[in-house]
């Protein structure tokens, strides 16, 4: 399988690549349009700040390319948020692939939402082999509200979108590459889609 991780200097690409390596899969890191277009599957990681990540994407013309992709695509953490319409983080226009907003947590609880929390209402082959209430690792201050595209949710304290699917675009707010056995299973499931 030709698997490409989008490398745009705003991602934890190394951790994702290592997680795939542990599954026995070699992934190519690339920001090149032709390489990404030719991939069987694309993984789109991201950490950091929405506006600077968008700037990095634009600098590489990836903001034009990514919405046109038709192969199975997996956005992780900030990579999930970037697929949406608009983020409250820096009042940033995003890739606008999934018609959803990204909001800041307004809660008395600690922000960032950091640590292991549970998945609920699993509704996708992405979660084959997982159980309700399985733990995954989160670090984020912004979230996507529940929507018709939500395929799993987590509560902090109110439920938000733990994962999304819109056409060929899958996305997870948590870090499957840092979520132990549950996370590995999710990556494995994505590779099998």
């Amino acid at each position: 399988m030709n698997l490409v991780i989008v490398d745009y200097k705003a991602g934890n690409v190394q951790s994702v690549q290592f997680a795939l390596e542990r599954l026995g899969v070699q992934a190519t890191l690339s920001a090149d349009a032709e390489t990404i277009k030719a991939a069987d599957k694309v993984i789109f990681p991201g950490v950091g700040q929405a506006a600077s990540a968008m700037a990095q994407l634009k600098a590489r013309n990836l903001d034009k390319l990514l919405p046109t992709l038709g192969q199975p695509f997996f956005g992780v953490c900030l990579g999930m948020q970037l697929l949406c319409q608009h983020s409250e983080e820096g009042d940033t226009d995003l890739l606008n692939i999934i018609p959803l907003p990204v909001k800041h947590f307004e809660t008395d609880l600690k922000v960032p939402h950091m640590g292991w929390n549970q998945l609920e209402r699993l509704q996708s082959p992405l979660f084959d082999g997982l159980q309700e209430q399985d733990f995954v690792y989160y670090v984020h201050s912004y979230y996507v509200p529940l929507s018709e595209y939500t395929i799993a949710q987590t509560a902090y304290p109110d439920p938000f979108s733990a994962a999304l699917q819109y056409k060929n675009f899958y996305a997870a707010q948590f870090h499957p590459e840092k979520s132990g056995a549950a996370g590995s299973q999710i990556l494995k499931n994505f590779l099998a889609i």
Partner: protein
Amino acid sequence: MLTKRIIPCLDIKNGRTVKGVQFENIRDAGDPVELAKWYAQQGADELVFLDITATNEGRKTFAELVRDIARHIDIPFTVGGGIGSVADVEVLLQNGADKVSINSSAIKNPELVSELATHFGSQCVTVAIDTKYTEETGWKVYTRAGTVETAHKTMDWAKQVVALGAGEILLTSMNNDGTKAGFALDITGEVANAISVPVIASGGAGSMEHFKDSFQKANADAALAASLFHFRELGIPDLKQYLKQQGIAVRI
């Protein structure tokens, strides 16, 4: 529900774990990767690696080690020790670290905290605060491995670094560190209740009750220990079972 985190801390010198770690079932307990894998299997929620190497050569070794750790473990980890610039952090994050912890360099140059938050996001910036209480001064911040008293009151400094963009505070009480008499519940609680980001309690863990107290009485989000785990005085599976029985949300 978001769970409380249990975090073993490993001191690294020249790419090896220090403190005579005692594990029968680990081939090489001086090998941080072996030890990290073992802790991950035991149910540690996160790991912290502190580089106590003083030389530049050692620093290079540490970056390579970070890469090796990231390659082999599937839980998050924080690295700290001697980080003084955006470039230092870039190397560590690119090699697969999830967060960095800065201490003395934040005291020397508080702007570093906001630079790091801007470059990499608050979520990967942990500020470590070494604090000590005396009758005269109250809780003050210490720097340079706890040897030099600063002008900062602990609570003020914690608020300041959060305002600058710290995403987490690792609060170590020097009064409690090494005593095994429990965490400093007073200052940990004060800080945890006053700031908006997670607080890791550190220093003084000696029993399961101490962890319970750090969570229930001091409202810490995570608790860190080193020798207690390394010398197998307390197993993480037992600790987590106990905490669960006490009604504390933990990942089992």
